């Protein structure tokens, strides 16, 4: 992340010096203000969803959902911890319903539990990031809404292609992560052998 951010910032600065040097500070402050209002909005959304989440957890529904999704989660993440599985199960379910913002608090909690403190992403963390970045969406509600307001005759007819496309990208992501995880383990064992 440090590298990506550095490249983005320095690249933009160099460009803006030629094109529009007086606007650099303005657009930065504007963006930060936008982030602030987004956060206030998010706070409202999170209050609703985290209230619901607490209910799901206290009532024991979370555990049931985790047990239901246990075979899938265990294969994907190779973890054996009911608390983490619960968070991941809720995160995945919210994503599927198209509730990205509801999925975020649970995703963050799951990440905290997966973190081993080494500073490098573990295979499970990478899997969770990629799953969320390619998330399966069964109901692209915002897109349908925009399309309807632009005067489409049947705004919902993009649902089927969207589901097919999203399922394919998600599968591709899972396969690539699994492949890279395997390569990484092989490299590690090779290194150990060399050291011996």
């Amino acid at each position, binding site marked *: 992340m440090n590298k990506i951010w550095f490249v983005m910032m320095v690249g933009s600065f160099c460009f803006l010096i030629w094109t529009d040097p007086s*606007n650099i500070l303005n657009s930065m402050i504007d963006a930060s203000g936008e982030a602030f209002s987004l956060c206030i909005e998010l706070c409202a959304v999170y209050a609703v969803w985290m209230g619901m989440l607490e209910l799901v957890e206290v009532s024991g529904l979370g555990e049931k959902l985790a047990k239901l999704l246990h075979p899938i989660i265990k294969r994907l993440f190779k973890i054996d911890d009911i608390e983490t599985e619960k968070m991941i199960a809720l995160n995945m379910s919210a994503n599927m319903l198209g509730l990205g913002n509801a999925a975020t608090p649970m995703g963050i909690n799951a990440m905290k539990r997966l973190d081993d403190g080494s500073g490098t992403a573990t295979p499970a963390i990478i899997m969770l990031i990629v799953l969320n970045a390619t998330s399966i969406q069964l109901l692209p509600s915002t897109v349908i809404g925009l399309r309807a307001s632009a005067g489409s005759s049947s705004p919902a007819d993009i649902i*089927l292609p969207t589901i097919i496309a999203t399922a394919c990208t998600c599968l591709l992501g899972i396969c690539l992560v699994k492949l890279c995880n395997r390569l990484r383990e092989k490299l590690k064992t090779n290194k150990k052998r060399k050291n011996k």
Partner: protein
Amino acid sequence: MSAYILPIIFIALFCYSKYKKVNTYDTFVRGAKKSIPLVVDIFPYIATIMIAVALLRASGITSLLADALSPIFNFLGVPTELIELVLLRPFTGSGSYALLNDVLVTYGADSYISRCACVILGCSETIFYVTTVYISQTKVRKLLYAIPIALVCATFGAVFACLLCRVM
């Protein structure tokens, strides 16, 4: 139909909680309380990534990149009009929805290009934003191959979406 899904889930949740003798009011308040510290924790990360994205857009690098990459995307079947959308999508959610709206208004909601744009947005996510927020509360700073894989998937998704819209 889809409008009924959430209410049904909520009713089921409340009835189940009652059945399990959970104090719904107290529990909900306890959960809602956690939202404020969470937002305070993630605000700096969101601000940082949004500043970088705003600069990137203001500098015109994105449109330059779109021009440079257009032969490749055209070869893969992505219309030139949608390249900026594909490039911006990993960075900004609100920005890409604004772009989608432009496309819908300019080309008509039922045109091929608009349908492609809808499917592209529907099957992708704001990769950099999601990643920043998700790892913000951990010590993880080295992501190894997570972002490259996510970007490969998003590009594949865009190409696949255009192909699907041609067939369906």
